[in-house]
């Protein structure tokens, strides 16, 4: 009996039992549905074993949307709890668990897979390649991410959720103060998905350096690919720091080491440093690809080339360097003295300069353009002023002496949501709408899309701008309740209303998908938005091999070159070499899940077995003789005729 006790939630509530039932029913429904419609084979052959970068991208996309709703449910609960003073809806412990999982889910399991979805889908298409450099590794990355995400998500029904904040500062996150297994979940789940992320970083960099089509020099790459290249370089430098920090944290919690404890020579500040040495670059890992998407979209709907291509690239390179030199701004108040704070204050503000350059470049891309207000463009246009507000409040926070007043308050919360929502989330929704036809062969409904945009924007302003004010009025972040006398009840009520409006906006996205699947016309051609970069030069939806003939690239705007008489696809069809599907990545994901679960509960025997399983998979792969397969010229001809006819 005692063995099973540890799997119980230490702090249960009706909501948690209800979720358990809901999760159970959903799983049963999915299994029953797959069996009834005889889709198990299809699922396995076409998705679970796929190594096609486009399908992996779609799986990332679906996961990101699911996690958006998981994190969004947390968010609405928090805002409801704070809507009125002295609220008893949630108790402190639940509130703490909810804001912790909200932060982790949104950053690691919503924003990251969203970014990876676009990297996976677009990089090979934008550089004229047939897949990424290591397709099998790419599948492993996805399944590791997925295993980590699922492991993290079961925490609230099995054993308890982490409750020390997404920053998980020690000693609060140590055994003494976080007694449930929650923080073990945090450490292990992030470790597993972080491994996947690191592999993706290596994979994408290799892809971009090694697999560009003839003629595509680095300075002729579309801007999204550039931004991804830089984001992936940051990944490769930043994620190992997270790996090390998590490993040390895990050892502190499970093996009694003293890296971050406050006794026996441990240093709690070391965790904060390591966390933010990864954490600050991490926010740029998210925002740079978002910048890339905006660059593509703004250029397309201005009917023009991107203004200042070179300075766009230069500013991103500069941002990537600076992003490693500012981490201390997350704890100006740790007492490191005026000199250290001054240095990091200046480096932090310096980031605003290259960021500003980008804002101006987008503005000048509109100049002399022919602006079409489509849904992706609306997101991009909303992004410009809203993100500017987020950026300038960042500069305010960077003034370290003043930050003593902003730090740990709702002002800070307003700042980072103000950068992440209009910056990253809007970019993802814009990209989602913009590339949807490329992925699925039909458009999302524009009218519903516009409604969504306006609800999200209005909701965002209502939800987050009041926080700047309540922060200055002394509302600390992460308080589960406050008294009437504190005087910010009204502002928090506004935030709740805003959050509710945003929630409706997100639901509309789902409705839009449903509506468009049913009613959208299917004959939209290869380039429905009248865009110019290479990814629009192939068919919609994209055939497995991407391009029947490897393109010969002349500039970053392939379709404009075609218009000017350039021969983008010279030569004739030849047989195409493609990688085979493999069940191994999925199996490894499952084993890693078991490995992580055993680790969380310190069950050493299953852990050892799972570890052996992982090495066995790797050994199998090394010995495996799989040389891929060829698509014959005949098959290519058939596919091409069919797609052209459609």
């Amino acid at each position, binding site marked *: 009996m005692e063995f099973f006790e540890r799997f119980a939630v230490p702090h249960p509530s009706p909501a948690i039992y209800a979720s358990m039932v809901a999760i159970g029913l959903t799983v049963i429904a999915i299994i029953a549905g797959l069996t009834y419609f005889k889709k198990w084979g299809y699922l396995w052959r076409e998705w679970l074993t796929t190594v096609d970068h486009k399908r992996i991208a779609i799986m990332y996309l679906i996961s990101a949307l699911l996690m958006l709703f998981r994190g969004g449910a947390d968010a609405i609960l928090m805002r409801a709890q704070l809507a009125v003073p002295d609220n008893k809806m949630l108790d402190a412990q639940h509130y703490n668990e909810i804001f912790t999982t909200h932060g982790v889910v949104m950053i690691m399991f919503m924003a990251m897979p969203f970014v990876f979805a676009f990297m996976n889908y677009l990089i090979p298409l934008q550089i004229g390649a047939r897949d990424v450099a290591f397709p099998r590794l790419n599948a492993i990355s996805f399944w590791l991410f997925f295993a980590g995400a699922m492991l993290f998500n079961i925490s609230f029904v099995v054993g308890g959720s982490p409750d020390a904040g997404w920053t998980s500062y020690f000693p609060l996150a140590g055994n003494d103060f976080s007694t449930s297994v929650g923080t073990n979940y945090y450490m292990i789940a992030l470790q597993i998905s972080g491994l996947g992320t690191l592999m993706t970083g290596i994979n994408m960099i290799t892809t971009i350096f090694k697999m560009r089509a003839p003629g595509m020099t680095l300075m002729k790459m579309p801007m999204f690919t550039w931004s991804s290249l830089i984001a992936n370089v940051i990944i490769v430098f930043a994620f190992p720091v997270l790996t090390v920090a998590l490993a040390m944290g895990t050892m502190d919690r499970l093996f009694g080491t003293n890296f971050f404890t406050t006794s026996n020579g441990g240093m*709690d500040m070391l965790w904060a440093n390591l966390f933010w040495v990864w954490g600050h670059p991490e926010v740029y890992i998210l925002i740079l690809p978002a910048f890339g998407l905006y660059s593509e979209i703004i250029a397309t709907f201005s009917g023009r080339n991107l203004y200042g291509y070179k*300075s766009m690239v230069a500013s991103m390179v500069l941002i990537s360097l600076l992003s490693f030199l500012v981490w201390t701004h997350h704890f100006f108040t740790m007492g490191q003295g005026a000199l250290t704070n001054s240095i990091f204050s200046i480096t932090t503000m310096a980031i605003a300069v290259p960021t500003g350059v980008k*804002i101006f470049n987008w*503005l000048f891309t509109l100049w002399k353009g022919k602006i079409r207000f489509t849904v992706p463009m609306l997101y991009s246009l909303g992004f410009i002023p809203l993100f500017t507000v987020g950026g300038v409040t960042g500069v305010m926070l960077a003034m370290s002496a003043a930050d003593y007043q902003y730090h*740990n308050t709702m002002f800070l919360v307003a700042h980072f949501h103000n950068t992440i929502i209009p910056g990253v989330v809007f970019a993802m929704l814009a990209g989602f709408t913009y590339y949807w036809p490329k992925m699925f062969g039909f458009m999302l409904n524009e009218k519903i899309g516009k409604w969504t945009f306006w609800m999200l924007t209005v909701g965002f302003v209502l939800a987050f701008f009041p926080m700047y004010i309540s922060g200055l009025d002394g509302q600390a972040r992460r308080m589960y309740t406050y008294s009437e006398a504190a005087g910010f009840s009204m502002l928090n009520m506004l935030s709740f209303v805003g959050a509710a409006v945003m929630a409706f906006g997100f639901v509309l996205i789902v409705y839009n998908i449903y509506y468009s699947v049913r009613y959208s016309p299917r004959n939209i051609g290869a380039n429905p938005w009248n865009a110019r970069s290479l990814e629009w030069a192939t068919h919609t939806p994209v055939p497995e091999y991407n391009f029947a003939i490897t393109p010969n690239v002349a500039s970053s705007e392939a379709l404009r070159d075609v218009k000017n008489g350039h021969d983008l696809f010279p030569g004739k069809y030849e047989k195409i070499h493609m990688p085979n599907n493999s069940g191994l990545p999925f199996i490894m994901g499952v084993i890693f899940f078991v490995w992580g679960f055993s680790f969380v509960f310190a069950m050493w025997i299953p852990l050892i077995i799972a570890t052996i399983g992982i090495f066995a998979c790797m050994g199998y792969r090394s010995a495996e003789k799989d040389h891929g397969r060829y698509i014959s010229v005949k098959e290519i001809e058939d596919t091409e005729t069919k797609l052209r006819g459609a």
Partner: protein
Amino acid sequence: MKLKWALLAVFFTITTVLTGCEPLLVLDPKGPQAERQANDIMLSIGIMSFIVIAVLAILTYMLIKYRASKQSEDYEPPHIEGNPIVEAICVGIPVIIVIFLSIVSVKSNYIVEATPQGYEDQEPLVIYASSSNWKWHFSYPEEDIETVNYLYIPTDRPLEFKLYSYGPITSFWIPQLGGQKYAMADMVTTLHLAAEVPGEYMGRNANFSGEGFAENAFNVKAVPPAEFDEWVEEVKETASPLTEEKFNELLEPGHLGQSTYTGTHLEFSPAPEHNHGSSEQDEHSTDEHHESGHSEHDDEHSQH
């Protein structure tokens, strides 16, 4: 400039209306450090709103002038690479702003990290503020008294807070007197404040520290120096002494009301020796400190 002040006026009207006509705590300073910070904040809000307005204006202009519905069917936008002069301006203006703000920021850093300006010649009142789950203990070594969850301070005298924690990292914050600083278990940090207006202020732990975090607040009462001395005398006459046993009781996790003692816990449970910045660590005293820390954790375990 006019625009800036108009904006500030609008901003203030909105904020005061929204917050029920009371000035925001951080922008209603009652001491020199908070005032410096409030000035920096207002200055940066001013400059930053100018930037936001500029971006909004350019954006609006572009959208009105170049929207497709206003142009002829066959208008073909030109191909424009960058323009070095335009781009130099786009770099130049932000650089100038950042340089200006950096200068302000560096100056303020040295100001808030030192005895408040104008008080340099006065002997500061040293107060040890230590947090335990989820309380604040204030020790006045000179006066030899200790309070829990409330702070009595004299006005017009520099205050030097020595911060540390008997548990998770906390952050000592009295918005109207000045910004916050962390209190940690393995070192002492120093926060320089001063109060210029008598009154009652809100003080709290701003850094998330677990279940009782929301209620981890304390009350600050600033009184004229003479009154402060009276209060000290009164405490000495009426309060009971703080014994080690009593103090360990106080450390147990939970919430407590306010209480007052003669003597301080520094005598039997001294602050961690390691001051931030100094490289050597006094092994003995840190060990001692951690022993008391541990017994507290054990208590916590047995409660669960």
